[in-house]
């Protein structure tokens, strides 16, 4: 794809990236502070959060927190 094409998509791609990164960082920050998970679990969740796009952080925030 030519460069001008990419420029045309920037106004829509940048907010999308910001949302995804916000979600990922929120989940990671929560994971680091989470004391209910042991080290191995944390590593697995970190991989899921980082590499499973969009669904990964959501899965962690719904099922992985073990808070209540």
């Amino acid at each position, binding site marked *: 794809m030519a460069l001008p094409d990419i420029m045309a998509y920037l106004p*829509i791609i940048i907010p*999308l990236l910001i949302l995804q990164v916000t979600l990922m960082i929120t989940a990671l920050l*929560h994971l680091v502070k989470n004391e209910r998970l042991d080290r191995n679990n944390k590593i697995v969740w970190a991989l899921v959060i980082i590499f499973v796009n*969009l669904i990964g952080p959501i899965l962690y925030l719904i099922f992985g927190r073990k808070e209540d």
Partner: protein
Amino acid sequence: MRGTLAFLKKELIEHTRNYKLFIFFIVFAIIGILSPLSAKFLPELLESLMDENITIILQEPTHVDSWVQFFSNVNQMGLVVMILVFSPLMAREYEKGTLVHMVTKGLPRLSIYSAKLAMLYLSWTLFYWMSALITLGYTYYYFPDSSTEGLLLATVSMYIFGLMLLALLLLSAVILETTFAPLLAVGGFVGLLFLGELVPVIQEWSPLQLNSRNAQWLTGLEPGREIIQSFAVTGILTVFFIAAGAALFRKKAIN
């Protein structure tokens, strides 16, 4: 009324702290952004992947494609995430026995029930329309000659369909007491609706029309009599689910 508001406030704080509202915000915002993007982007992507010797004729995408993407994303992502996240909403209270204190201190059960319902409907209303507005904005930006013909009917019918599913979710959450059984109940109900599509008589009256025919109205198809039938059935079912849930919750043994 005061009890309802107080309980609703508690629900709002709880759902903010356990990230549920945050998840909805992100998911629905992404749906709103992704729909126009994929409508605009997919044909170009296909073209660039194609071999030069093969030519496929792709129609220039229009605003209708953007909304088609929006409705399928709301169906497959938005509603699924919302029902999944809200599925444990009664089970957790039953399990931890948190309702006992409030009921014995004199908070009417109807207040609890209506606060739960208000929480569901507030979230759906807020995030669904936020998502629709984002899609509307980007659709105008990328398809400047787009019209809004039929748009109101298409978006409102999807919204009403969501209201019905959430009422059913609350009813099954009151009855079933477990974390994910309400999710299965709603899934089973939608499955039944799809089965009903095979029978023409049921299809004509089926609430499913509200979430599957949205795109047709955008292309200028006049909504016929069956859409009024569909709205009526959906409305009756919604009221029935809400009333049944309230009646059952009043008699429910809480321990």
